[in-house]
C-alpha cells in the first residue's frame, strides 16, 4: 500500500513563527504536492515538485516556501505564520504524468 505520511495531524502556532510541515512518501513517486483546503474553496495548490530540488509554484504560493532535498520528502515552510494561514494542509504524491494522487492524512494548522 502506498503511504503518504504527514508529520503532524494538528498544530497550533503563534503569529510570526516559522512553521515546518513535513511529508514523506514511500512509493518512489516523482511528483509531490502541497495543497490547502478551506471550506467552500476546495483544494488549492500551493507548490509542487517533480524531482529532487525542483519546485513549481501553484495557485497560492505567497507566504510559503518548499524544500525537496530527498525524493521521498517534501517540506512546506511558512516563513512567518499569519492567522489567514489557518487551514487544513494536505500533501500528495504521484508518478510523473499526473496519474492518480495519493494523499496524506492532513495537518490542521491553527495560527493564533
Amino acid at each position, binding site marked *: 500500500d502506498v503511504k503518504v505520511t504527514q508529520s503532524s495531524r494538528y498544530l497550533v502556532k503563534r503569529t510570526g513563527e516559522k512553521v515546518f510541515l513535513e511529508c514523506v512518501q514511500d512509493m518512489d513517486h516523482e511528483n509531490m504536492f502541497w495543497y490547502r483546503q478551506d471550506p467552500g474553496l476546495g*483544494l488549492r495548490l500551493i507548490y509542487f515538485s517533480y524531482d529532487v530540488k525542483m519546485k513549481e509554484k501553484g495557485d497560492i504560493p505567497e507566504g510559503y516556501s518548499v524544500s525537496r532535498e530527498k525524493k521521498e520528502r517534501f517540506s512546506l515552510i511558512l516563513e512567518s505564520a499569519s492567522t489567514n494561514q489557518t487551514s487544513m494542509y494536505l500533501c500528495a504524491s504521484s508518478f510523473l504524468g499526473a*496519474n*492518480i494522487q495519493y494523499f496524506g492524512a492532513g495537518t490542521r494548522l491553527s495560527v493564533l
Partner: protein
Amino acid sequence: ELKVEQNPLFLSMQEGKNYTIYCNYSTTSDRLYWYRQDPGKSLESLFVLLSNGAVKQEGRLMASLDTKARLSTLHITAAVHDLSATYFCAVGHGNQFYFGTGTSLTVIP
C-alpha cells in the same frame, strides 16, 4: 488557468434515491479523477477516467467522462447512509491536478 466547477455544492438525499453530481472543466483534458473525503479524513481515490466515453462503476457509484463537453458525472444509485461524504472531482493537466470545490452529500434515512 484551468477552472473546475462542481454542482451541486450541497446535496441532501433520501436513502434509496438516485442523483448525479456534475463536474465541468474549462480546458481540454483527458484525465479526470473522483475522490471521496470523509469528515476529518484525507482524500481517497474513487475513479480515474482517462478517455472520452470512459465509464467506471463501483458499487452504487458510477462515473463517466465526456471530454468533448468537458463534463464528468458521478451518479449515485439507491443511496445509502454510508455514502455520506464530500466528493471531489479533479482534472489532470500536465503534472498538475485542478480540483473542484467539492459536493457535500448527506444521505438521510
